[in-house]
C-alpha cells in the first residue's frame, strides 16, 4: 500500500521538477531533433543506392526509429545525475528518516524518467510525421512503440543510476553516458543497415541491444514489404526485442537495487 502511494507521490514530484525546468527538457530534445532533420537530409541519397538499403523506403522512414531509440537511450543514461543530486543535496537523507518505502524512492524516479522519454518520443514522432514519416501499424502500433522505447530506457537507466550511486559524481555519469552512447549507436542498425557495414561492425551490431529495439520499432512503422527487405519479421522481432530488453532490465535494475540498498542502510 505504501509502496504504491509513496511511488505515486514521488513520481508526481519528479514530474513537477521536469515540467518546471522546460529549458532542460528543450536541450535534451535538441540532439534528436538535429539528428532527425540533418541526418535524414544528409543521407537521403544513400537510401537510393541499390543493395545498401531495401528499396521503396526513404531514409527518414529508415532512421526515425533509430533516432527515437537513441533519444531514449541517451536520456536514460543521464538519469543517474538526478540521484547524484538527491544524494549530495541531502534530499535522500531527508526521505530516509521518514517511513517512506525504500523501493518507492527508486521506482518513482524510474517512472518519471520513463514518462519523460515518452513525452520526448511523441514530440519527435510529430516532427517526423511533418517531415513525411508514418507508422504502418497505426495508432495501436504507436502505443506499442512507446512502450518499447520507455522500457528500453528504463533498462538502461539502471546502469546510469548504479554509476551515480557508486561515484556520487554527476560528471562521471555524464562522461560514461556520453562515452557509451555514440559507439553503441553507430555500431547498431539505428542509422545504417548491416548490409552497409564492414564485417566486424555488422557482428557487433548483431548483438547490440539497440539493434534489437530498433528492429522491433521498425517492425511497427515500416510496411511489411520493406521488412522482408531488411530481413525482419513481424511480430517475431518485437517479441525477441522484449525478451532482450527484459534481460537487460533484470541485470541493470538488479545491480541498481543492490547498490541502492547499500547506500540506504
Amino acid at each position: 500500500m505504501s509502496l504504491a502511494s509513496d511511488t505515486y507521490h514521488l513520481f508526481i514530484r519528479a514530474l513537477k521538477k521536469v515540467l518546471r525546468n522546460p529549458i532542460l527538457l528543450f536541450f535534451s530534445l535538441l540532439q534528436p531533433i538535429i539528428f532527425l532533420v540533418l541526418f535524414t537530409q544528409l543521407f537521403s541519397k544513400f537510401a537510393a543506392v541499390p543493395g545498401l538499403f531495401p528499396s521503396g523506403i526513404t531514409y527518414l522512414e529508415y532512421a526515425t526509429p533509430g533516432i527515437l531509440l537513441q533519444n531514449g537511450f541517451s536520456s536514460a543514461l543521464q538519469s543517474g545525475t538526478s540521484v547524484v543530486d538527491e544524494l549530495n543535496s541531502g534530499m535522500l537523507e531527508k526521505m530516509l528518516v521518514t517511513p517512506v518505502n525504500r523501493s518507492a524512492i527508486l521506482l518513482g524516479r524510474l517512472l518519471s524518467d520513463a514518462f519523460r522519454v515518452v513525452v520526448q518520443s511523441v514530440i519527435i514522432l510529430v516532427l517526423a510525421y511533418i517531415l513525411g514519416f508514418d507508422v504502418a501499424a497505426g495508432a495501436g502500433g504507436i502505443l506499442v512503440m512507446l512502450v518499447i522505447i520507455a522500457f528500453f530506457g528504463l533498462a538502461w537507466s539502471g546502469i546510469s543510476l548504479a554509476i551515480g550511486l557508486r561515484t556520487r559524481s554527476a560528471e562521471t555519469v555524464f562522461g560514461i553516458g556520453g562515452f557509451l552512447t555514440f559507439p553503441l549507436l553507430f555500431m547498431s542498425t539505428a542509422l545504417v543497415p548491416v548490409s552497409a557495414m564492414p564485417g566486424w561492425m555488422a557482428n557487433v551490431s548483431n548483438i547490440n541491444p539497440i539493434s534489437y529495439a530498433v528492429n522491433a520499432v521498425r517492425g511497427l512503422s515500416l510496411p511489411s514489404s520493406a521488412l522482408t527487405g531488411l530481413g525482419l519479421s513481424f511480430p517475431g522481432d518485437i517479441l525477441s526485442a522484449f525478451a532482450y530488453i527484459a534481460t537487460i532490465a533484470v541485470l541493470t535494475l538488479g545491480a541498481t537495487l543492490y547498490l541502492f540498498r547499500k547506500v540506504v542502510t
Partner: protein
Amino acid sequence: MSDVISVEGLVVVYSDGTKAVNGIDFGVKEGEFFGFLGPNGAGKSTTIKVLTTLLKRTAGKITVAGFDIEKHPEGIRKVIGVQSQDTVIDPDLTGRENMMLQGHLHQIGGEELKKRVDELLNLVGIADVADRRAGHYSGGMKKRLDLASALVHKPKLLFLDEPTTGLDPQSRAAIWEYLSKLNREEGITIFLTTQYMEEADRLCQRLFIIDQGKIVANGTPESLKREVGADSITMTLENGEAGPETKDRARQVLGRLEGINKIIESDGGLTVYAKNAGLVIADIVRAFDSNKIHLSSVSFASPTLDDVFLQHTGRRIRTEELNTKQATFSRFGAARRPTRQ
C-alpha cells in the same frame, strides 16, 4: 519517567578509521529540551545520524521512543522529525508542496494534512510565500520551511542539527522562539546540537558538552557555569603576539598573586579564574607593570559556557572566537554577530 532516548556506550568508527564518537552514554527524558554543545567535528552530527537511523553504529545499545535502533528502525522513523545541518528543501517545489510531500511520505493526506500544513506555514511565518517556489526563498525562509516540514506529522521527538548555523540574527531569534514554543506548548522532546553557547544557554534544560567524540561535562547550563565557580579574566599580551617565553613569565607572575584559581592559555594571551575579579585585576595590572610585561587589554566576565568548555578541554569553541569579547559581556552577543556562511 523512562527515557525517550537512551544511549549506552555509543561508538562510531568510519570506514577510513576515524573515530567520530568514542563511547558516550546519555539519556533524554520525555518533554525535555536537550542539547549537545561542541565545536565542529566533535561528533554531534554523527550522533544525530545514528539516532535518526541514517548511520550504523559500531557499538552501543540505543533505544529511541522505546524502539531498539537495530531491530525497529521503522518504528522510530514514524515518530521523529529531523532537521539536518544543511537546509534541505526541494527548490523546484513551492513551500506548500514541500510540506505536502513530507506529509505524504508519512502517510498523512487529505484535509488533515492540508490543515496541518496551513497551521505550520503560519507558525513559521511563510504563509504569504507558500505558493512560490522554495528555490526563490531567502536563506532564513528556507531554514524555516525545512523546520516546518520536519513537524508535519506531529513528531514526538524532534532532532535539530545546528538549526541556526548561518542564519542572520533576526531569523535566529525567530527560530529560538518557535522552538521554545514547540517544547513548552506542544510538549515535543527536542534534541539539539549547536556550536553556539548562547543558543545552548537559552534553549536547553540540560546540556552535554562534547569534544572529540567524548562527553566532557554535563548538567543544566546554570550548574555547569556554577561549577566554573569564578569569574574569568582574559588578558591579551603584547597586542596578542606574545611568544611562549613572555607567557611563561606572565604565568609565574600570576602564580604569585593571591585569589587566582586557574591559569589557562588562550589565544593571544592568558585567561585566569578568580572569585572576585574586580579586585584581582588591579593586582594583575600592577604586577605586570613592575615585571615589564606588556599588557594590551584585560577584561572580565561572569562564567559562560565557553568557560566551561575551556576549563574542560583547554580550548575555546572555535566558532565563538571572533566574538568572545562581545559574547562574554552580553548574553545575547551571538545574536548581534554578523552572519558567516
